[in-house]
């Protein structure tokens, strides 16, 4: 394997730079649609890039009593894991037979790393409010990971029980996307709400509730480190709907993927704009009781072939 080609894939396309640029563009779409829903004019198209550039060139302050290494390295976890995830998703969709057994488990672990980055960063800054934000992020992660895993197991069942991601895509290309069945719809709803919680969008943005704990786990970050956190969130906004399309809607190796992708983004933004914020105990109850039971129903329906 050519080392230049590998580096190109991980850093330029579709890795770090490509998903960074498209992710920041999607955050602009989010802000513009939100502004239009509020009857305002939103920011111009280059706004997220100006934000990112400004943050890169500002002074980075490290608090005195924090654990400095962890404080500076925690933001990189999210960015690195999302770059690897981008390469894996693109290679799976355009080359479904070249995947390895068990790579869906690797993807689940990669999706777990950005919240861990937030938790570590919030705990490493010596600040009570950041600690509260980190513990809320931990609780929210426990809440949504359970139905998310059950939904993924539902899809594995529907694909005939194999844990190769390429098999999931091949089965969908052969016999229609999984979304066009009852258990598929249930799994789609569950995974969409888990995406909303993973991105920390309203109604699940309790870890960084601005009115209560003043930016939560990000409170001591400034400059390059904050830019990396924002970039990790932007990349998640790009990659998680692609993950949903690959699992449930037939993969994105054709041009029909673009309208599907935009539909999911619009759904995320609309849910964001029409709901108030839930408290942390309401988040736990919502995900474990409501959505958990729904995902188990989906699992049972998938077992019986519906």
């Amino acid at each position, binding site marked *: 394997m050519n080392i230049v080609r590998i580096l190109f894939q991980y850093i330029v396309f579709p890795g770090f730079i490509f998903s960074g640029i498209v992710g920041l563009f999607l955050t602009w779409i989010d802000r513009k649609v939100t502004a239009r829903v509020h009857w305002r004019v939103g920011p*111009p198209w280059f706004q997220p890039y*100006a*934000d990112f*550039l400004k943050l890169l060139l500002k*002074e980075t302050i490290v608090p005195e009593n924090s654990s400095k290494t962890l404080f500076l390295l925690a933001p990189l976890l999210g960015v690195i894991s999302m770059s690897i995830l981008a390469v894996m998703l693109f290679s799976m969709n355009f080359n479904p037979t070249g995947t390895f057994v068990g790579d869906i488990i690797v993807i689940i672990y990669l999706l777990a790393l950005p919240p861990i980055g937030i938790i570590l960063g919030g705990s490493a800054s010596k600040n009570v409010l950041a600690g509260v934000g980190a513990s809320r992020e931990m609780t929210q992660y426990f809440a949504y990971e359970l139905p998310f895993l059950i939904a993924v197991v539902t899809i594995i069942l529907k694909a005939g029980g194999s844990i190769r991601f390429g098999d999931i895509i091949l089965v969908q290309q052969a016999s229609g996307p999984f979304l066009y069945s009852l258990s598929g719809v249930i799994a789609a709803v569950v995974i969409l709400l888990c995406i909303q919680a993973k991105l920390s969008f309203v109604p699940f943005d309790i870890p960084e509730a601005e009115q209560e704990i003043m*930016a939560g786990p990000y409170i001591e970050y400034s400059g390059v480190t904050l830019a990396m956190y924002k970039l990790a969130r932007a990349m998640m906004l790009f990659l998680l709907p692609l993950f949903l399309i690959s699992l449930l809607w037939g993969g994105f190796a054709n041009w029909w993927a673009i309208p599907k992708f935009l539909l999911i983004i619009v759904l995320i933004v609309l849910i964001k704009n029409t709901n108030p914020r839930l408290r942390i105990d309401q988040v736990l109850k919502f995900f474990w009781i409501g959505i958990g039971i729904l995902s188990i129903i989906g699992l049972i329906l998938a077992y019986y072939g519906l």
Partner: protein
Amino acid sequence: MGNAKLWGLKKSPWVFHVAAASCNNCDIEILDILTPRWDVERFGIVLVGSPRHADALLVTGVLNRKSLPRVIDVYEQTPKPCLVIGVGTCTCHTHMFEPSYNVVGPYNKYIPVDVYIPGCPPKPEAIILGVVKALKRL
């Protein structure tokens, strides 16, 4: 300052609101400019929750003996380069509050202020004009 840094600061100034013993009139007007009527997000101005994320500090109110160490702390925690914008006539000069036992003088004895916006309270258009003038000064 380099050109790219200047462009970034001008196009997306993030604002943190410091209320040092104000009567809250100016605070209400600052909240007003984020509403749809004088939508200020089109200039890239976002109200952030922590002084470490901020590029501009909007200070309001007459400086009090009790809030003075806090305001100085917030200013020192903000990453430079940062603008300090004093909103309201109370920040320009202590005028009628001068003989009080609790007033410790105008702001520029303790932190460097870039732009003063007079008015009691200043209209939202005046605040936007003041912020734009401060950005042009960069």
